């Protein structure tokens, strides 16, 4: 196990460095001047030159790159062009909102997906299965920018129970979490159903039923734990994606998370902030993938012993 962790960590290092380099290149090679974005295109040339010097944008690309990479090695992501705050502080101040939203969405997704997935798998081709399958298809086919406004229309405008947008108490959390959670629950439900159906056909489940265990109990006690293994993988990856910030949902509900921060940074051409955000997210993605792999090995002894 330890060797596996170390090997995976060693693989992750070049990926993160590669991402950092790619982000740096992407941002510095494409057209668009942050100084123009900050001062407006009509600004006086001397002011522009001064700001450019202050932001060290007049230095050769290679020296900017070297400074960026040595900064990363020291854990220093630079200072935001716009707010002049350290990038790391900006990111960390937004991360709790994203974490909160991701956790709530995950909880909602599980609350919907697990019971419905089991119900559908217990009676395949029944009306329950059909209903679950249809609603899963609906959930899969509705992007967040469709679900979100629909939820606002129903719960905020028609019923007036939850606020339209914003960040505050639990009421503000419900609609964005439902938006993200419903799509995710559709994926999880479909996975759980098919993975359960596969397990139910196995001999150990038939044996349990033959020995007198009720079908429901055999499924829940024996088939479910095994069926959850592949679901856990998808769950982990989905959660990782949520932690990266959900740009669209955060935009719809004015949620002050990482996704929003990143879009704002891109719009303002705040190079250090964009770099920092993407790097942070990439690091998060790589760590979540690693954790999911380890979790997978933990849940399925066959992989551990390979």
């Amino acid at each position: 196990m330890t060797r596996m962790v170390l090997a995976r960590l060693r693989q992750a290092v070049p990926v993160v460095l590669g991402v950092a380099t790619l982000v740096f290149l992407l941002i510095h090679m494409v057209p668009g001047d942050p100084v123009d974005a900050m001062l407006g295109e009509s600004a006086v040339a001397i002011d522009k030159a001064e700001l450019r010097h202050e932001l060290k944008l007049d230095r050769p690309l290679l020296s900017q790159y070297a400074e960026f990479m040595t900064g990363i090695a020291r854990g220093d992501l630079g200072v935001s062009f716009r707010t002049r705050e350290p990038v790391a502080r900006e990111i960390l101040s937004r991360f709790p909102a994203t974490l909160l939203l991701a956790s709530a969405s995950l909880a909602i997704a599980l609350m919907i997906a697990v019971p419905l997935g089991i119900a559908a798998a217990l009676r395949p081709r029944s009306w329950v299965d059909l209903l679950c399958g249809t609603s899963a298809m609906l959930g899969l086919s509705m992007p967040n920018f469709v679900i979100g406004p629909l939820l606002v229309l129903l719960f905020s405008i028609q019923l007036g129970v939850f606020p339209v947008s914003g960040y505050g108490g639990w009421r503000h959390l419900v609609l964005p979490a439902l938006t993200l959670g419903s799509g995710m629950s559709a994926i999880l439900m479909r996975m759980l159903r098919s993975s359960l159906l596969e397990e139910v056909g196995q001999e150990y489940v038939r044996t349990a039923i033959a020995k007198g265990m009720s079908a429901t109990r055999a499924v829940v006690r024996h088939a479910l734990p095994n069926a959850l293994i592949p679901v856990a993988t998808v769950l982990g990856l989905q959660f990782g994606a949520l932690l990266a910030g959900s740009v669209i949902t955060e935009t719809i509900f004015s949620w002050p998370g990482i996704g929003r921060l990143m879009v704002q940074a891109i719009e303002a051409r705040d190079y250090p902030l964009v770099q920092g955000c993407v790097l942070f997210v990439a690091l998060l993605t790589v760590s979540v993938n690693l954790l999911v792999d380890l979790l997978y090995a933990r849940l399925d002894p066959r992989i551990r012993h390979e």
Partner: protein
Amino acid sequence: MSSGVFNRMLRHRGAGAGLAFLGLLGAAALLAPAITPFDPAAQALDAGLSGASAAHWLGQDRLGRDILSRLLFGGRISLAVGLGTVALSIVPGTVIGALSGFFGGRIDTLFMRLCDLLLAFPGLLLAIAVTAMLGPSLPHVIFALSALGWVGYARLMRGQVLKVREMEYVQAARATGAKPLRLIARHVLPNALSPLIVEATFGIGRAVVAEAGLSFLGLGVTPPTPSWGSMIAEGRHFLFIAPHLTLAPGIAIMLTVMAFNFVGDGLRDAMDTRTAGTTAVRDGR
């Protein structure tokens, strides 16, 4: 696609309906300039936000533009991005995946590390960054989505090739002296393609959603060209007084994506020999 696969697919619940819907949508998108009752950009400010009427079946938006006409023209953009992105992703994806899986070794390591690197990027975000920096336009959207899109096809293809490569017929062809590129093109690729076709079907649906998402954020095609995503973004501000502005494009996206999902599900079931076998058994019971 053989007629057997096609027939099996149509037997799948929803796949036939999905295909029919996509056919209609495709025809409507192609013929949009001829069949739309109004110019999608023609404004009628005094009729702004009005609901459905005999002349305007789906009502009018803030500037009085006909929503049905805008929806049909928006469908052109959605389908263009969907098909364009998949075409632009699947070709490099297939080539890279096939080479990687067939030759293994250093080529494989190099390509797969590149894939790992790109997969560490949050999906939509790279597209947002690329379109924000290149400027919003149709080709830029397709390019931005394909920049990451090929990775999935490459990995899928690689896995398939690894499997097919060891088959006896490939070994036999190799033994008769076939060159590697001929082996790949004539023997490996044709037998590794089915999951790619299924994936491409879902991929078109995903690209439609991604385009709408970018347009929703104001990074898709430039106005006044209508796009379903920008229509939702605009309509969202009038959710209180004119929900049809949001509902019409929302339902259009939903139906389109659902159609691609149904067809994809149907294709997967029809092409997966294992599932086809169990269905046959069940049919014979």
